[in-house]
């Protein structure tokens, strides 16, 4: 197996090797399982179809955005403008849909726009060597201010029913969940088995070594950001089609949520390691925690403190695991 995705030296037994490669994913998965067991024991309704569907479907767009974010972080960069981009995408899609364009244009055009914008951002980062946080901080301002300048924050209502892709339920499961699972699997295979996927790890791990090995790091970074734009675009469409109203503003703190999901999922912020399965699991974990705290009757005033403690606990558990694995 390729060990590009591993964070620790490969152990002796296959089991240990597995643990080494997917340790953080396992920690997150176990946390989710524990949460379901405990909260389910307190209130059975937590385990109902409706609730599980709601947790997954309501937060799928975060998981999908986190896939692209993970790729960006693996390549050694970061994007703090993703929340603003998703707001812009949602507004574009809604505007097109109510202006009478066919729905497929309302779905596809904003995604193409997101790919183009982020490819531009990637090019700026790759060829001028400006740190990605600077460029994307700038983009955050430009997209957010630009969006309000253009729309004045007017809500988009009266969306056509066939536009609401996130509300469709093929085979009884919300389409957002299909997207989340499908895209995660595709992205995971892509990251592991394609040359481009491996190039992302190589560039994030050691850019000079990657160059020496014949890769073109600049092109890789542009490609990663374009892919990130694709995922952000899909996230934006799902975000837009979940409800009957589009707010035409930037969803508050979404970028922090997405970045947190990626890094808690085991993507090293230093680049070069991590998997998209981890980030999707982490996004699900956060969604579960958010729901679980309400089911457990945690005082609403202390909810965020508990959430913070849980994030901290996950992080520390991961650190402890890495130490022991070493």
């Amino acid at each position, binding site marked *: 197996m390729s060990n590009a995705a591993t964070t620790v030296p490969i152990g002796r037994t296959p089991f240990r090797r597995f643990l080494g490669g997917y340790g953080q994913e396992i920690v997150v998965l176990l946390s989710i399982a524990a949460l379901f067991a405990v909260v389910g024991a307190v209130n059975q309704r937590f385990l109902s179809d409706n609730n599980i569907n709601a947790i997954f479907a309501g937060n799928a767009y975060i998981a999908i955005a986190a896939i692209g974010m993970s790729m960006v972080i693996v390549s050694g960069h970061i994007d*703090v403008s993703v929340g603003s981009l998703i707001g812009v995408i949602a507004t574009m899609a809604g505007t097109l849909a109510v202006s009478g364009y066919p729905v497929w244009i309302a779905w596809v055009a904003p995604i193409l726009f997101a790919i183009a914008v982020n490819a531009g951002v990637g090019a*700026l980062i790759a060829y*001028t*060597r*400006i*740190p990605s*946080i*600077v*460029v994307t*901080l*700038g*983009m*955050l*301002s*430009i997209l*957010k*201010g*630009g969006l*309000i*300048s253009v729309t004045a924050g007017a809500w988009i209502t009266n969306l056509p029913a066939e536009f609401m892709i996130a509300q469709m339920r093929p085979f009884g499961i919300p389409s957002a969940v299909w997207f989340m699972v499908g895209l995660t699997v595709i992205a995971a295979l892509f990251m592991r088995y394609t040359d481009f996927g491996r190039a992302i790890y190589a560039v994030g791990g050691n850019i000079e070594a990657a160059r020496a090995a014949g890769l073109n790091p600049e092109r890789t970074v542009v490609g990663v950001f374009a892919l990130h734009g694709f995922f952000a675009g899909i996230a934006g469409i799902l975000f837009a089609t979940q409800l009957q109203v589009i707010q035409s503003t930037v969803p508050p703190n979404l970028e*922090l949520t997405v*970045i*947190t999901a990626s*890094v*808690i999922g085991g993507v*090293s*912020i*230093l680049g070069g390691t991590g998997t998209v399965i981890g980030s999707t699991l982490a996004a699900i974990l956060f969604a579960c925690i958010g729901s679980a705290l309400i089911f457990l009757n945690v*005082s609403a*005033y*202390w*909810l*965020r*403190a*508990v*959430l*913070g*403690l849980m*994030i*901290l606990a996950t*992080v*520390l558990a991961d*650190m402890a695991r890495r130490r022991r694995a070493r």
Partner: protein
Amino acid sequence: MTAARLLRHETILAILTVLALIVLANLSDKFFTAENLLNQGRLMSEVGLVALAMTFVIVTGGIDLSVGSILGMTAILLGVFWQNVGLPLPLAMVAALLCGTLAGLGNGLIITRFKVPPLIATLATLALYRGLAEGISQARSVRGYPEWFFYFGQGELLGVPFQLWLLGLLTTIAGVILGLTTFGRATYAVGANETAARFSGIRVDATKLWIYTAAGFLAGLAAVIFVSRVTTTRSDMGTGLELDVITGVVLGGTSIFGGKGTIVGTALGLILIQALKNGLALSGVKGDGTIVVIGVVLIAAILAGALFDRNRGG
């Protein structure tokens, strides 16, 4: 690394700032008045104080996303210590500041003892400290502070806002520490190459611990001034502060990869942003337009610096 090279970005930024000031002064005759400029100094003090510590943090190659939450938590504690616990207000201020400092120390400990990357550690404490602020306050505001307390946020000393004196003093101290002392050199060394710094006998962990603790302290200080300026405490105070601070610091030329940056640069970066926000508003540009301009300026300034550097080097 010569001083000239270090100051390269700062020079560009200084020229840019002067240009901006001239343009803005021409756009509105209300802009370049002593009263307006001093008032702007008052408004940027909280961000400025935190940015000083953030410069050190980023120079070490780290980041602190929790400063806004520490500000909120300290503000809440100030009110709670005074009103609910019944401490005299000066004592409550000291106790709250102490808690802010401890919050910073907590960040430092998680980062150095547990080896958690700063971004992840402070993402977690961003949620935790804000959550503590909400939980402790039970969403209640504390109001009705005595008149003397408002001096810190609203008073003037020799015609200059009190907090501007404080900001000036601390900027000087921070500039001296980062530029001229062993501690400053250690800070750069940690950011440039942590392993090398460790091998050359620099106490990497202690340095980081001090810096994150200082960030907590300054966020706490900013909280006291903020409460004094707005005369009330709320648990959502300082939300989003971290992005404003980081924008100022990176615009000031501090490299997010560590090892490079100056307090002068940070000060210039903050002044440029504040001048743009204020000057554009005075010349009739709306808030959303101003946000766009700041984004463009941020990218353009760093781009200019990068191109300049490369031409020199290449």
